[in-house]
């Protein structure tokens, strides 16, 4: 398995992601310039990552213009063929804009850019799938967030479908795992921090696990999330 990290103009977490995958997870990983239209070196065993940042300066809407970058046509085809695609923060916004994930990320409820550690817990089928990792994944993980537009929203019918299909991957919670309004940093509907598509090969989340993958940084919770989410053979429904 290898990883490709797409670099858009304005991406600023691409190096963090490359570094975490290469040195903390010991994976083969290459940067992919957004103008490249050839990702034929990647098979459905591999994973394409859309990193955080401010692609195209967040002009118009976060992720709206990046969604039409030349590489995205290939990324969408790759996802439709069953390849894994993973978006963090701005990457999550781009996945929602491109229609690979349902819903949208709205401006934070409290009108502020938030940059701090928060707590999340794995949810539903994701937690179930990883029950062999129960010791780790039934716990609560401390992961940094850094965003101004992270309030996940989906209309009621879409939200019901997300729940029914077990597509909610992470919810914001407090340090003890309780979902409270105070532990929801941006006002996301149902405390949702991350979701997958129905086929479980496209994932998006607002928190940044790649910033929490090394003992030197004082937090390795992100490593557990990246390992289990991206390197599990397949998440089942």
């Amino acid at each position: 398995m290898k990883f490709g990290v797409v670099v858009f103009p304005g991406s600023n977490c691409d190096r963090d992601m490359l570094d975490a995958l290469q040195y903390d997870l010991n994976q083969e990983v290459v940067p992919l310039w957004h103008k490249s239209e050839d990702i034929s070196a990647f098979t459905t065993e591999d994973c394409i990552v859309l990193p955080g940042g401010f692609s195209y300066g967040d002009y118009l809407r976060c992720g709206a213009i990046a969604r039409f970058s030349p590489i995205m046509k290939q990324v969408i085809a790759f996802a439709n063929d069953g390849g894994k695609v993973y978006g963090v923060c701005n990457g999550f916004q781009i996945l929602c804009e491109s229609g690979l994930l349902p819903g949208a990320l709205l401006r934070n409820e409290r009108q502020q850019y938030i940059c701090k550690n928060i707590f999340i817990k794995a949810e539903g089928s994701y937690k179930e799938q990883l029950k062999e990792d129960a010791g780790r994944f039934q716990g609560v993980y401390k992961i940094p967030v850094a965003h101004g537009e992270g309030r996940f929203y989906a209309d009621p019918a879409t939200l019901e479908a997300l729940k029914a299909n077990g597509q909610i991957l992470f919810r914001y919670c407090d340090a003890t795992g309780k979902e409270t309004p105070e532990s929801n940093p941006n006002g996301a509907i149902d405390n949702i921090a991350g979701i997958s598509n129905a086929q479980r090969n496209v994932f998006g989340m607002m928190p940044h696990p790649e910033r929490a993958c090394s003992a030197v940084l004082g937090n390795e919770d992100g490593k557990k999330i990246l390992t289990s989410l991206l390197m599990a053979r397949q998440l089942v429904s």
Partner: protein
Amino acid sequence: MSYTVQVVIMPLKELLDPQGKAVLGGLANLGLGAVTDVRVGKNITLQVDAASPEEAKGIGEQAAKQLLANAVMEYFEVTVL
């Protein structure tokens, strides 16, 4: 013919608009307490080459649907000026 096409994009009515809320607070501080609600959207004008105003409007609608607005969170209106 070149037409000026205006696309007005607003957050869906059922969604909280934090930007509008912040502006409402500013207006209250100004002393304009009579203002009871503010919604902030976008006004985008396009110069469009088309054979008729209808065609220009159609192109504006296509632009709005595919890129300028996101139907999950916004609605839009297209007018040929």
